[in-house]
């Protein structure tokens, strides 16, 4: 049988006055669930709330200077039981609570940032592995051999020696994948504008001001030109 401690009864008293903390509310609700089946014994959250509420109500009644319809404790128990049963059977859907609505933009924003960061990391690790494999397969990181992955410091000069792209070396590095399959190449090389921005922002944040977030970091143009 559930037997409430003085501590829990004191918590009930604080709850009535709106002075219970969040963790205490949680504790009381846990106890409330444990109490199920022991109602009416006088040792449950429900019994204590009803009992304390009765006293508070009597004081409140006297403050108004009038009397009203008074239900005896048993009728209050019956009333609460009836409401509880009706609520248990009710199928009201709570999909967008007040507090979560208020916090939603922040939460969504954080979730999105976390997802974007994770995606960027996956791409970065993928690129790194590819580069490492390339290096091992070819005996070096940079190779001009056909079909062998390349990390080309592209965009610094064209065949006639003129500078055609003034982007920083790191930012303009493009990667030629090891596999011949177009899909695989696309999967490794291409990020849409939004993700590129996120990746640049992440790299900037992590590595200081090494990168300019407004310049393209991963591109396919030079690689494609070579392939073409």
């Amino acid at each position, binding site marked *: 049988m559930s037997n409430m401690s003085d501590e829990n009864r004191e918590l009930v008293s604080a*709850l009535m006055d*709106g002075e219970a903390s969040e963790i205490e509310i949680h504790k009381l609700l846990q106890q409330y669930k444990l109490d199920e089946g022991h109602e009416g014994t006088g040792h449950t959250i*429900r019994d204590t709330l009803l009992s304390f509420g009765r*006293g508070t109500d009597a004081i*409140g009644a006297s*403050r108004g200077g009038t*009397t009203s319809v008074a*239900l005896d404790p048993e009728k209050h128990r019956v009333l609460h039981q009836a409401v509880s049963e009706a609520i248990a059977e009710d199928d009201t859907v709570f999909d967008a609570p*007040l507090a979560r609505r208020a916090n939603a933009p922040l939460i969504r924003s954080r979730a999105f940032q976390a997802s974007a960061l994770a995606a960027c990391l996956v791409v970065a690790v993928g690129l790194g592995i590819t580069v490492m494999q390339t290096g091992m397969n070819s005996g070096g990181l940079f190779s001009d051999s056909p079909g062998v992955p390349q990390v080309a410091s592209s965009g610094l000069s064209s065949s006639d020696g003129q500078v055609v792209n003034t982007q920083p070396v790191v930012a303009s590095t493009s990667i030629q994948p090891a596999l011949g399959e177009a899909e695989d190449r696309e999967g490794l090389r291409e990020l849409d504008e939004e993700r590129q921005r996120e990746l640049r922002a992440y790299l900037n944040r992590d590595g200081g001001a090494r990168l300019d977030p407004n310049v393209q970091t991963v591109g396919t143009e030079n690689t494609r030109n070579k392939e073409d």
Partner: protein
Amino acid sequence: MPESARETDRQLVERVQRGDKQAFEVLVLKYQHKIVSLVGRYVRDQDEVMDVTQEAFIKAYRALPRFRGDSAFYTWLFRIAINTAKNHLVSRSRRPPGVDVDIDDGEYYDPTLSDVAGPEEQMVSSQLEEVVYQAIADLPEELKVAITLREFEAMSYEEIAQVMECPVGTVRSRIFRAREAIEKRMNEIG
């Protein structure tokens, strides 16, 4: 009602909105005496009071997804209870009371409303009040002051702690012990 009370209700409401029905049951327990008293200002018959109170709580539960917290939960709940009681009277072709209950003071009786309790209910209520008052009068001084400031002045624990120059935890304990003493006296009369 102190701000802290609103905060406690808000936490319970949020739990309900996350699907915790038992949090709503606790809210019902917290307010059912007050709602019964409020409805009792409009409806005389005890069975009808119970029906209307039950209906009010169920309406509140169903409306909770739309509750945005612009007002305190108890204010919102009292408004629903008053409307439910008025609708009940209209549906029974009775005239609702001409004077509205002030929502902000809804937890207490509005003396401008006519007294609808019958002689028997009045006697029971008066007896209960007398017992409660006597119980408070018999309390040790520190408990008496704490419960009086809480119940009659609606002070928060923090405010009471300042008045009584003691820690908030002590206030909480004193109010609890006062309530236990009152409960014991009430149980003696049944």
